[in-house]
């Protein structure tokens, strides 16, 4: 037998093993019908003749499929040992012979459907109305960008700030302003609850303050004190802005969602 011919036979044999294992798995047949020892003997016999990477990969796949069969055999034994196990052929026979009405009556004795509600409540309506009132119209949120054809010309400092190429002095002065405010609010304790500091009468203003506060921490004007067990976050002003260190910066996300703001405002009013 030529080498080429023999290699083709080996490949066919390995493919046959793979297909056999797959069929047993997909059809849910008894995995003990597969003689694992015989299959392993075949693989062992052919393995020394394999050189081609494609053949080696077929060999690995065949071994993997045999491993799946062994796993199925283990599960089969476990299942037979459980109290739920009954002969599947007996059950199938009953299912074929029972009338629709009998089957339904049996099922109704074992069926306890879930009871659930899908309904709008007064509370959720009120919340939705509040949200709707504070929602900016689409015409403002999705303002269409107008493209203008312009000639090249010298740019200005203001234009660069607007485009984000230069840092805005006004923004820095905003940061310094809120830093002063933080120092004042922190008082003798030297710290203030994060929400008490950023919270404002409107949600938009709260978001703006949270945004500026995040820069306070990033630029070293203040630091956060997190108490995970009490689920509290405090913000502490620094006497002088700390310069950035070379260590890896740590990011700490704080969710400033609408619901949380409503709860905070309600507590403030009480």
């Amino acid at each position, binding site marked *: 037998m030529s080498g080429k011919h023999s290699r083709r036979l080996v490949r066919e044999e390995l493919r046959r093993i793979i297909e056999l294992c797959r069929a047993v798995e*997909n059809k849910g047949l008894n995995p003990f019908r597969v003689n694992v020892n015989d299959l392993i003997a075949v693989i062992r016999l052919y393995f020394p003749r394999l050189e081609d990477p494609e053949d080696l990969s077929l060999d690995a796949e065949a071994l993997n499929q045999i491993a799946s069969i062994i796993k199925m055999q283990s599960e*089969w034994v476990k299942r037979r040992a459980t*109290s739920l196990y009954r002969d599947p052929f007996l*059950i199938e026979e009953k299912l074929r012979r029972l009338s629709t009405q009998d*089957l339904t009556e049996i*099922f109704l004795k074992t069926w306890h459907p*879930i*009871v659930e*509600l899908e309904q709008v409540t007064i509370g959720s309506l009120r919340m939705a109305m509040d949200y709707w009132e504070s929602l900016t119209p689409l015409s403002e949120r999705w303002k269409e960008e107008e493209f203008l054809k312009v000639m090249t010309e010298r740019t200005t400092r203001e234009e660069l700030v607007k485009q984000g190429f230069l840092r805005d002095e006004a923004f820095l002065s905003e940061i310094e302003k809120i830093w002063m405010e933080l120092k004042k609010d922190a008082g003798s304790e030297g710290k203030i609850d994060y929400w008490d500091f950023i919270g404002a009468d409107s949600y938009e203003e709260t978001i703006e303050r949270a945004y500026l506060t995040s820069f306070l921490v990033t630029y070293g004007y203040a630091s956060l004190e997190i108490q995970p067990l009490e689920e509290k976050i405090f913000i502490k002003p620094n006497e002088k802005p700390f310069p950035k260190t070379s260590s890896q910066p740590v990011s700490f996300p704080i969710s400033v969602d609408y619901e949380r703001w409503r709860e905070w405002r309600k507590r403030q009013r009480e």
Partner: protein
Amino acid sequence: MAKASKRIGRKRRYATMLKKAAQLIFYRRHIEPGVKGWELRKRLGSDYPKVIALLDEYLRSIGLTVKTVFEDESSPENPTIDQLDKARFYITLREELGLEDMKFMGWRIDDLAGLAVSLAYIISKGGKAPRKDVESLLKMKIPEWRVEMNLSRYLRMGYLMEDENEQLYLGWRVGAEVDQKKLIDLLLEYEI
């Protein structure tokens, strides 16, 4: 006097928690109905198992019960707090249903029998069966066009799951609603 007011305060607290627990479990907030134990702990505090027991007792009078489905589908006699935190709580009917109740629940007799056949067959095969086998079993008594429609409904409602190899499995809803052992026992006991 102080003891009595303390007792009234505790009673009021539990009454409030009972309402909150009922709302949490009854209203669907996720894809699946019901609520996880850790969510109840977050909203009701660490003694939520006691609140759930009280709610179960309260629901008894109107034929409902709180069903606890543990993560590994086991049913421990004395579950630990960790097992309860990971479990899912549903409200289900406590009593058995009769044929006359079925229509009010939006199920036709054929559809429910088809569901019983599909579930029993998959349970008998160890929790997994090829879709083709289930289909051929259903086609014996249900018109072909209806079989496809029914299987889609069972899959959509969470009674069944299907993988990419067209194998059907029991879905999340079976653990909450169906007494699998009783179903198999009743089927085998039934005299034809």
